């Protein structure tokens, strides 16, 4: 009885596919980055890489609150409680941190419009104004930026 013989070309192809498969598996175990499954389906080390690559830009509300606890407190009471100081005042400059007397620029009324100018893409309940129907520029003459709920 002659047992089944694989034709040579088919045999070589099967062998080749097997070899490719095995070398792929070897490459996979050797080359997969060490931190790959640390948190999920990505390189855990990528997070650390990013934090070192980009200097933090904003100091954050609590940092401002160290020197301005009063403002922090008043702000927390009104409609602007969820805003960070830097949303209106801009990024804290390094000089301001080392030398508090170096004033940051006082924001003008224009900053208010970034959020309050009427736009249909804003949520319906959001307080919006149409600037030219609303006393125009000098918002701060009537509104207290830190206590927007105070009705002027």
């Amino acid at each position, binding site marked *: 009885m002659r047992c089944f013989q694989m*034709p*040579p*070309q*088919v045999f*070589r*192809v099967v062998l*080749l*596919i097997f070899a*490719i498969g095995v070398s*792929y598996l070897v*490459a*996979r175990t050797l*080359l*997969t*980055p060490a931190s*790959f499954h640390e948190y999920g*389906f990505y*390189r855990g080390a990528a997070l650390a890489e990013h934090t070192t690559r980009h200097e933090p830009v904003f100091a954050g509300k609590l940092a401002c609150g160290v020197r301005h606890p009063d403002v922090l407190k008043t702000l927390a009471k009104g409609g602007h409680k969820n805003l960070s100081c830097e949303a209106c005042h801009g990024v804290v400059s390094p000089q301001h941190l080392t030398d508090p007397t170096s004033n940051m620029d006082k924001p003008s009324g*224009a900053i208010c*419009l*970034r959020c309050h*100018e009427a*736009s*249909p*893409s804003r949520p319906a309940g959001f307080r919006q104004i149409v*600037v*030219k129907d609303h006393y*125009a*520029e000098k918002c701060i003459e009537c509104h207290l930026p830190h206590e927007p709920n105070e009705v002027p």
Partner: protein
Amino acid sequence: MSLQLTAILAEVAPHFDGYVYPNESGSHPLWGVLIVLYPYITGLVAGAFIMASLVRVFRVKALEPVYRLSLLTALAFLLCATLPLLLHLGHPERSYQIMITPHLTSPMAIFGFVYAWYLMAVLLLELWFDYRGDLVNWGRTEPGLRGFIYRLLTVGVSDVSPAAIALDHKLSWIISILGIPSAFLLHGYVGFIFGSIKANPWWGNAIMPIIFILSAMVSGIALCVFVYMVLSWRRRRALDMRCLDVMGMYLFYALVIDAAIEALDWIHRAYSAEEGFHVMEYMAQQRLFYTLSIGQLLMGTLIPLLTLGSLQVARKFVSDAIRTRLYFTCAIFVLLGVLAMRWNVVMGGQFFSKSLRGVMSYKLEFAGAEGWFLGLMLLSLPFIILTVLIKLFLSQSLLTSGHVPHRPDPT
């Protein structure tokens, strides 16, 4: 105030008209010309392969002269198909990681499987079984590096008995049959990526994979016409007019179906007045006028459709020389039209806001990773590879066994 306001807006959203969400207001769209080339190149692969299977599976005898050419064309383009994606991702030093960390539930990552299957299991195997007999013979007769390459490619199998060759042809035929659904899978997959994005009315569409496959077939056949004609001219050989006529015929049929399905898609959207139709209408009439109405519709579809259509009817009355020129022009128009179609799909889908009420303007740049210069380089790379492949495997100085299509035994 209004001055300051515009200053703020100018800083935030430099390229938009109308209403857009803040997170959409990047300085450029996320996907650029590289992602346009990706479906284009994969489509050409799938199309050229289907062209080759007309010979193998459907036994269209007249296309015999372009069988190997279209397979090699498919291979040359397939070898470049991943490049646009990898270039787009950047970080060449990490590009291998995408291959060794396959992901089973991410539609984007599935491309690795689709690609590997198509390259390894379908195209290379079919080519190998088709060429094996010739490779053995050439390995014996050709000297030097050339002969060495042929001998290497035989992977040590030197059996060229009629029985072995018959087996080769049979296997190649089976793979070819497997290859047709695979080619559909390859390009249907690319359409699926876009079609599954529900939030985007331009993309989210169940017939997107079908549109992609049909346009792939159209572009693939046009590419084979183009490559065949250029090769014949370079070699100063007479064109096989019958082969060319049949290619023109299939190009016409594919184009008819493709145009019908794409038109149906638009009619359906217009009639059902889908939410996003207004913005699509605006895009077609204004923002994408040149690429969609002129490039895709007029140049890529209507002109070739009319020319090829009238050639089907009045072939006898048109002289060979004129017919050749008409086929060539149609092939180029179709190739450009399908490129425009890919641009319209990929870029068009990003040009309008998810609010459906804002539109972005975008200027294609010359330099840079998403510039048109790199795109052009990338698009010429498969042609360079194809030239090498043709030198190696379609050289006129080599004797071929002459390809005999496999006929399954009636017994």
